[in-house]
């Protein structure tokens, strides 16, 4: 993990979080998307996990040469903001689906 810059890891986290949010909503709203993911690995959730893993390391690798700022707190706060917003988006989506 030492070879990746903190900026690269933060960008990779953003990419995974928003990929998960978008693909989660897409699989619920569009059956062909769910079918496509299921066709890849046998279960749509497994496919989401494997794609997330590949996406994380791909984005981290692409941005690995990005130089880190002197204070990395903003980068971490940004990722936390994404994670909280992403989690709330998923929760509210399923709440609306249920109601």
């Amino acid at each position, binding site marked *: *993990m030492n070879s990746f*810059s903190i900026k690269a890891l*933060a960008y990779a986290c953003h990419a*995974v979080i928003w990929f998960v949010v978008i693909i989660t909503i897409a699989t619920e709203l569009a059956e062909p998307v769910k079918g496509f993911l299921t066709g890849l690995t046998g279960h749509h959730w497994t496919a*989401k996990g494997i794609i997330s893993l590949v996406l994380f390391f791909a984005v981290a690798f692409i941005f690995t040469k990005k130089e880190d700022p002197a204070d*990395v*707190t903003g980068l*971490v706060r940004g990722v936390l903001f994404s994670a909280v917003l992403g989690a709330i988006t998923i929760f509210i989506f399923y709440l609306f689906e249920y109601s």
Partner: protein
Amino acid sequence: MTFPLIGLHAWLGEFAALMFVWAFIGLYSGTDSNIRRAKLAAGLGVGFLFAAWLAGGFYYVEFYGSGVKPLIKAGPFPWAHKVVMETKEHVFLFLPFLGLLAYGLMQRLGSQMTQDRGARVAAMYATGSVAVIAAGMAFFGFLVSSGFRAALEQIAL
């Protein structure tokens, strides 16, 4: 044989949360030896998160969908699956990557964290958030189990 697997998933997830709490406390104190231990704890925490992902994922794909989900949906608390489990299974996917960010950040900053309070605070944000989200997942797991238990009680009584 499904119960040991879900127990293993919960145990691994809770230990991951504990490792990140340990890392957070180590960072808070800020001494060289505590930061070294915090890095070790974060590394172990990442390992536990990936192991929890494998154990929980196998259980979810092989047993939950066919044996548990239909019962919860037909039981008195269908929201335990339709809202709570659906949210949990997707938000969980954030966790191993947030763990990797926390661990990678601590490896990268290294001894800088002993002198630079800002660097330490960044690492505390990262480790603290993993601990809090992992604890949230445990609470969601409790709600799903409660939904399943309520469904079984409805059948039995």
